[in-house]
């Protein structure tokens, strides 16, 4: 199992590197390894292009309870902030997924692009509140590293999907 996970992570990382500049890839990898102790596996790039908010949508983009919140540019699921956690914290009694995907989102407040890790929180049934489904850059299941339709709790001891967080890993490299 672990061997297969490693093979998969290696393949995903290789594909990521092929689609990114080397500097950008290393900055993503470095941020992921140093900034996210919860991620024992290589993260998966969720989107290679930063997604800018619509003009005039700054107020909505600053509301973490809105699906249009800037960090959620590639989220598909229930916002953990509505389920007892926050946009970067799993609710009590749940476990973060060890595998995940990563997006690059534009923060209109400071004009920067950020690498965002979309971990799922697992171990309880669907939260059922604040469902968001944004798919910029999302791709079908055969490109698994860019897919948000699979259950990313799949490798957890309890693979029951509860909600999704959006954790800033760092500023995206140019």
């Amino acid at each position, binding site marked *: 199992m672990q061997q297969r996970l490693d093979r998969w992570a290696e393949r995903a990382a290789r594909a990521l590197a092929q689609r990114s500049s080397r500097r950008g890839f290393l900055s993503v990898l470095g941020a992921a390894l140093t900034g996210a102790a919860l991620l024992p596996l290589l993260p998966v790039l969720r989107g290679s292009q930063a997604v800018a908010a619509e003009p005039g949508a700054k107020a909505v983009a600053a509301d973490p309870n809105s699906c249009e919140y800037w960090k959620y540019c590639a989220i598909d699921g229930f916002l953990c902030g509505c389920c007892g956690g926050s946009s970067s914290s799993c609710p009590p009694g749940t476990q973060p997924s060890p595998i995940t995907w990563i997006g690059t989102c534009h923060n209109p407040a400071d004009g920067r692009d950020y690498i965002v890790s979309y971990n799922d929180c697992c171990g309880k049934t669907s939260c059922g509140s604040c469902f968001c489904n*944004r798919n910029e850059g999302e791709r079908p299941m055969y490109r698994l590293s860019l897919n948000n339709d699979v259950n990313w709790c799949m490798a957890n001891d309890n693979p029951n999907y509860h909600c999704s967080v959006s954790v800033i890993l760092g500023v995206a490299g140019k």
Partner: protein
Amino acid sequence: MASFIGEEYRVPAAGGPFARPRAAIACVAVANYDGTAGGGGNRMGPRAYGALLALLTGFAAAAAPPLPAEHLDVTHLPPPSPHWMWVFDEALNNEIDTRLYLYDGDAHRELGQIDTGYWPGFTVSPDGRTTAITTTYFSRGSHGARTDVVEFTDNATLNVSGEIVLPPKRAQTLPTLYNVVYSADGKQLYVTNLSPAASYTVVDVVKRAVVGEIDTDGCVLVIPSAQRRISSLCENGRLLTVTVDDAGHEVARKLSAPFFSVDRDPVFVQAIPASNGVLFLSFLGDVYAVDVSGAEPQFTPAWPITSAAERGRWRPGGDQVGAYHRGAARLYVPMHRGADGSHKTGGSEIWVVDAAAHRRIARWPIDVKKYGSVDAVQVTQDERPLLFAATENSALLVMDANTGHLLHVESKLGQSLWYLMNP
């Protein structure tokens, strides 16, 4: 059997064994009201109302014969109809409790249900007698030990007729019609795995046992072709075809040339069953027909369902992005005005395309304000076909597939309808 359909069914439902408790509850309510209202300032006190009610009830009882006694039983399904449809409810707010509803497109009513557990796969046996569900259960409801299993339901009774425990790594993903399939002879079952390593489990249906696993090297789906040949869709736009033997072991594999560009215009993973294989639709609305009936898959050049002016502005989208009537060679696609990233947006129109002539023949607008956008479509395969459309509001629309005429609206069926499957 026909007596349960339509009005004859509904009339006795109002009386029967439940009539007596209901009357008893009414009496209690009157008594309660009588006891608590006190004297008050009403012109006619509650005691007087109670007396009047008893008097009127007495008159009615004297005028009409009593309702006949009824016998509690279990409804039997009528003989199968080509206008039945399986409707998948993801139960988004409680995904450990998904279901398939069996719906009658003529009687406009639900006929029954199969419980499908957590993020299931589903398929129907070649002889139509069995529905196979691959799913996951937890020993304590939402937690506890995980068991992956394929469960078989007898389509004549909707009783679970058997099960086979699977390795705990089946793909938990959104539905397609190719997450689990039978072999052409119905003796084997192929179950897509994602752990996240991709493979599929081979199940011997006759022996009721798991007999093999095929590593697909990252490719997904199980599209059956000949007796023991299965094709899977790969990240590089190729099709992997593996032949297995009767024992469930791999005997050959071949990778096709790329037939679409994942980076330029990826195809939806929701393959659409066609006459000799499947159709894939791309995000921009190109049709890729794959014929898997021969020794090797055959690919015909892709063709668009949009005009040049519409391309990129009108797009396929939703959960189930197309349905195909094999006899008429008609393709039905929910379409929306969209852009990159809108591929899960449901259709505000259903486009009807002549797949033989590569020509659109109709655009059927949907009242999105009233019903929501269309997330899933399926068409029956008979000569008077019905088109079913499931919407984001969990409405089920039943339409004449030849004219687009809206025949019936089930305004709220279940919780979140995401896929449709012909029985």
